[in-house]
């Protein structure tokens, strides 16, 4: 366990260094994000003064050490654009992303499970074929394109749903308004990922259905439904859980794109802006947070794999000895 925590810390540190240097080496002017239009009209003297104020005049390496020192004390600096502590900036937005990503996550895996079971139950018959066909076609549609299409149909032409934002102006606490704003982005997030996982569940279950123990379960008189739910699904679950954990960053990445297209005020839009306008401090914290999510989820899936499946324990060593 200590090994894992150590590994986690080292990964995060390595990530921060990488992020820091890459973001500073990339072209762009951070002063623009702080001073806006004014930055372009500044004289050389003024620029030097401004850079000194933001601590950008020192060598990159010194800057990094200083940032690291502050970060360890919980001070991640201020956002150039919002002139606020970056933690506050993110805190104001992260809720929106968690709602979109979290509900999306639950929906994706819930629906994928249902569809997967349905397909496996009707293997190679009509329902299975229809679901698989629809899945193949929809999963080929890029997310941004689908977003634009949905906006065009439901927001512009039919005027049923709003096209952007998280809630109507001044109605932050209105649940209905929030819900209406969520529908389109959520649809895109879910349809973008659903089919892949549904297909996976289907194939995993079918693999299990062909196993010998299913034959024994049927031979002892179990009905098909009991075999499917009590035996097959049970054996699919560990793998499914670990894949759920791995897929968190994947789905997170998907929501970032969707947020941008729908101008949904979440982490995704923030990340895009900060990268574009060189809002260094904001970019660093966002990058590290996303990175932590990725690393943490991967470790979680590893742990799930080891702990849940009773077969994983010391079994490999024994099998090796038996030589078969």
């Amino acid at each position, binding site marked *: 366990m200590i090994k894992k925590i150590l590994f986690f810390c080292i990964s995060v540190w390595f990530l921060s260094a990488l992020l820091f240097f890459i973001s500073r080496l990339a072209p762009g002017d951070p002063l623009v994000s702080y001073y806006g239009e004014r930055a372009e009209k500044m004289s050389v003297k003024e620029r030097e003064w401004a850079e000194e104020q933001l601590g950008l005049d020192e060598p990159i390496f010194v800057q990094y050490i200083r940032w690291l020192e502050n970060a360890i004390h919980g001070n991640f600096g201020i956002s150039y654009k919002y002139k606020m502590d970056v933690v506050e900036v993110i805190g104001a937005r992260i809720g929106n992303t968690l709602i979109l990503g979290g509900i999306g996550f639950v929906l994706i895996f819930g629906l994928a499970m249902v569809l997967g079971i349905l397909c496996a139950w009707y293997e190679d018959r009509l329902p299975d074929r229809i679901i698989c066909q629809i899945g193949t076609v929809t999963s080929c549609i890029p997310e941004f394109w689908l977003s634009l299409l949905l906006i065009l149909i439901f927001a512009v032409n039919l005027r049923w749903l709003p096209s952007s934002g998280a809630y109507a102006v001044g109605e932050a606490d209105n649940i209905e308004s929030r819900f209406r704003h969520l529908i389109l982005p959520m649809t895109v997030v879910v349809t973008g990922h659903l089919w892949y996982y549904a297909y996976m569940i289907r194939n995993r279950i079918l693999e299990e259905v062909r196993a010998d123990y299913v*034959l024994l*379960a049927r031979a*002892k*008189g179990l*009905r098909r439904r009991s075999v499917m739910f009590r035996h097959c699904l*049970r*054996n699919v679950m560990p793998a499914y859980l670990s894949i759920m954990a791995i897929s968190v960053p994947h789905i997170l990445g998907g929501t970032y794109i969707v947020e941008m297209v729908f101008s949904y005020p979440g982490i995704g839009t923030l990340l895009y802006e900060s990268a574009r306008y060189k809002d260094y401090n904001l970019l660093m914290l966002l990058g590290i947070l996303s990175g932590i999510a990725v690393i943490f989820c991967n470790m979680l899936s590893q742990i799930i794999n080891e702990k849940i499946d*009773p077969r994983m324990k010391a079994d490999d060593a024994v099998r090796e000895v038996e030589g078969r």
Partner: protein
Amino acid sequence: MSSLLEIQNLSISFHTPRGEIEAVRNISFSLSEGEVLAVVGESGCGKSVMCKGIMKLLPACAQIKSGRILVNGKDITGYGEREMCNLRGSFFSMIFQNPMTALNPTMPVGRQIGEAVKQKQPGISKKALQERVLELMQLVGIDSPKERMKLYPHHFSGGMRQRSVMAIALAGNPRILFADEPTTALDVTIQAQILDLLREVQQKLGTATIFVTHDMGAVARVADRVAVMYAGKIVEIGTAEEIFYDPRHPYTWGLMQSLPAFSRGKETLHTIPGMPPTLIHPPKGDAFACRNEYALAIDYEEEPPMFPVTDTHYAATWLLDARAPKVTAPVGRGRK
């Protein structure tokens, strides 16, 4: 003795992209209460398909083409999944070749046995269920069942797993037990133990058993009657004594001769030349003809019918026809 199971002219085919595989072709036999029938043959001869076909455990691409399956005189050929579920476990049950994969790896063994018990006694109390599970585990010779029932299959050795599978199969007090090569995947010593257990349980509970194997030695140990299968057909059937001491079909002779015990002290083992035919387009006439050193001209043209040797002993070979030349069997008592 009344006949518990009667198979009449059963044919089973698989529909595959490569064509129709006639896995079981026109099989008839009957099984009496409490008797052990061994079905012997090489892999791919249809012996295991026949068992699964009777229990309707075959995949969707398999189809019973013709024939009838009678259970206590009742025709179950047309039964659907729901009706079969009621028969499975309580009337017939099955144990499989590979005990390593036949148990669900993520469920404690005791629970898997309990599941089978519950299937037949849905309202059973928790305590009674546990007692029944322990009783079953003791019946199949698993020591300290109380501790072991909570363990997962991977804690068990191969022999122990096969015992657990037997406990599951016997949970519903079935009248017929299909044993599909139950000892093939096990070590010699464990094989012997499982064979003895099979015989012991069979005598204790009076369960009729269909024992599928390719090991003639194992057959000699447990079988009352023996059916020899080749290319989807039963080519010879009779009591164990008749088959071992007075075999009539050349394929049975070949099987006996390829046993190393038969060639002791010789330079080479006796072999049956060639390979079994594929069953996609079974050859015309006797399927064994091209591997048969005693083949007659008619074997290539017409399938031999079952010739009776005695009341219990039948063999499908033209050699038994009145017009055929007399051939002395190279094995069995006729030789000694």
